């Protein structure tokens, strides 16, 4: 049994309540941080832990904190927008262990000296919003938020902010705009990091819900214990959200690099394999922004660099499995449709490109595509991400744009024959 960090309590009845959280040792890490540690000592533990951000970009958390410009006014923003298709890990954490998130947020606010902390949650998480607001209310009453917390002399307020339905608000600068009460338009870079100019123009740390949820454990057990799990840059555990053509879709927290894609998919304790007689056709790791990988890569360990070396990314930690009865063209088309819907429209290559690619992919899937359509699609992709390299070149304000080609290009590369069947037989050969 491997160590569970962020999901250690999620199956306990009423795990979302303060009383259960306290029974399980909750808020001891906050006490320890505030009463026994300096802010820089807390930050040091997080740096030593090597924890990479769990939101998708995989940036070292300690390093990010150390980049925070030391102006008097600075903020902490927790990113709980979770809208990357097939990613549902933060959803579990906010509903089933909201106090862990609040505790991690408070410890981080102390470490970085935030004036105020904001938890931005995806608007569609109705239950999550209720659970996190209840947790915040309970934490105020318990004295864990507010004035002179636990008699430490440290004070801070925590505010929950609901989103309102826009994928792009997960991008950290769009999220900040949204939190300022505006449309969620990503900001032009540089500055590359909100750590320099963020919320209300002040230096701001933006971290993902799962990242924050790991912090209490790191403070309790030490950064070294966290770093002892995993391998290389992949330290600690990760919450893998497994979906698609597997028998047991769900969230599985695993020590990083300890299992391979094959083990996650086939182990009866995890994915439980595929339907009788089927085989893996492709895997979409890291959310729909990631390039696909084939069955030849199933023995890759679930680690940051391992997946990057195979030409894709671990991204948000989600993994979609397509079996040999599923249509690659249809899946790739649907992903493009998503990006087309969610493009914020600021950049021409993203706004127009996603529309063109979606239309062409759809006509291929429906059987009215031509062979030259494939080149047309690749050409449109090349306009968004010149050279079609991995990681992609960027012609747009944010990386939503260059994420659009990932699935389309890998689908065409891996399954050109299947595209040709759609074109020649004037329709989709799969039953759905």
């Amino acid at each position: 049994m491997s160590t569970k960090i962020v999901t250690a309590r999620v199956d306990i009845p009423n795990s979302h309540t303060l009383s259960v959280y306290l029974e399980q040792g909750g808020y001891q890490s906050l006490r320890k941080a505030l009463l026994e540690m300096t802010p820089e000592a807390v930050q040091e533990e997080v740096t030593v832990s090597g924890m990479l951000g769990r939101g998708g970009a995989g940036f070292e958390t300690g390093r990010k904190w150390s980049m925070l410009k030391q102006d008097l006014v600075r903020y902490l923003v927790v990113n709980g927008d979770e809208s990357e298709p097939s990613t549902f890990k933060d959803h579990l954490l906010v509903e089933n262990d909201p106090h862990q998130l609040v505790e991690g947020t408070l410890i981080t606010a102390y470490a970085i000296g935030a004036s105020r902390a904001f938890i931005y949650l995806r608007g569609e998480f109705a239950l999550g919003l209720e659970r996190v607001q209840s947790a915040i209310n309970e934490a105020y009453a318990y004295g864990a938020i507010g004035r002179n917390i636990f008699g430490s002399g440290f004070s801070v307020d925590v505010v929950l902010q609901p989103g309102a339905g826009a994928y792009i608000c997960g991008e950290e600068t769009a999220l900040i705009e949204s939190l300022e009460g505006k449309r969620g338009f990503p900001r032009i870079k540089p500055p590359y990091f909100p750590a320099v100019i963020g919320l209300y123009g002040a230096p701001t740390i933006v971290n993902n819900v799962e990242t924050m949820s790991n912090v209490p454990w790191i403070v309790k057990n030490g950064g070294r214990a966290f770093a002892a799990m995993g391998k290389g840059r992949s330290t600690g555990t990760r919450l893998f959200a497994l979906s698609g053509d597997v028998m047991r879709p769900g969230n599985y927290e695993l020590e990083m690099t300890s299992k391979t894609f094959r083990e996650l998919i086939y182990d009866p304790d995890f994915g439980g394999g595929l339907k009788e007689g089927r085989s893996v056709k492709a895997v979409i790791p890291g959310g729909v922004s990631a390039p696909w990988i084939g069955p030849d890569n199933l023995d890759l360990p679930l680690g940051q660099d391992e997946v990057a070396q195979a030409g894709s990314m671990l991204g948000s930690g989600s993994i979609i499995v397509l079996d040999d009865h599923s249509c690659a063209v249809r899946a790739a088309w649907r992903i493009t449709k998503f990006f087309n819907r969610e493009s914020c429209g600021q950049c021409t290559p993203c706004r127009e490109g996603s529309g063109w690619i979606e239309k062409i992919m759809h006509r291929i899937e429906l059987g009215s595509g031509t062979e030259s359509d494939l080149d047309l699609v690749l050409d449109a992709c090349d306009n968004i991400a010149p050279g079609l390299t991995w990681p992609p070149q960027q012609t747009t304000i944010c990386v939503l744009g260059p994420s659009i080609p990932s699935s389309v290009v890998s689908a065409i590369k891996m399954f050109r024959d299947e595209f040709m069947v759609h074109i020649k037989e004037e329709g989709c050969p799969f039953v759905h």
Partner: protein
Amino acid sequence: MSFFNPENLEKAQILVGLYPDKRSALIPLCHLAQSQHGHLSNEAMVEIAELVGVQPAEVYGTASFYDMLHTEEVGKYLVGVCTNVACLLSGGQELLEHASDVLGIPPGATTEDGKFTLEEVECVAHCDKAPCAQVNYRYFGPLTNGDFDQLVDDLKSDRLSDSVPPHGVLSRVFRDAPPMVPLEIIHQERRVMDEAKKARLAAQNPDAGGKQ
């Protein structure tokens, strides 16, 4: 005449006081207005504009960016069927078609009695329960066609009114107080913290001259 009823006006005041810049309350206030009225009316937007100190057109312009903010009426139950990849692989597209047949409306439309609005939605982070649907952002899945019919029956007869409140009601848990510590006090505290940290670092590393 105020759009917000007295109880909501009190909530609105708390929301406006949560931020260094009150414009940040714009989206939370839009949700509050929807919870009172089912959608975002012109009247509501005018009042929100006043509360956060912007023009009504800016409230409209901002709201129109977000899928969950509806400036037109929607049904009592907003049914969203997910057709994104994980759901697609498990029959989400077919579920949407079935939903459309059962409700007698295409996606985007509202039934004549105003009870249901159907939407095709993007991934709602419930992919392990594919294919799934949300009703007023409460999740259901995995759903067979039969399960979906049962769900519609239950909604029609208001059997689920406890777990699925009418459209617009999002979180039913509210913050009951403004921030506890004014930012001026926080900033005094931080100034002291920052000075102490600088002194500690200088003591540890006399050559660095307070640089970190």
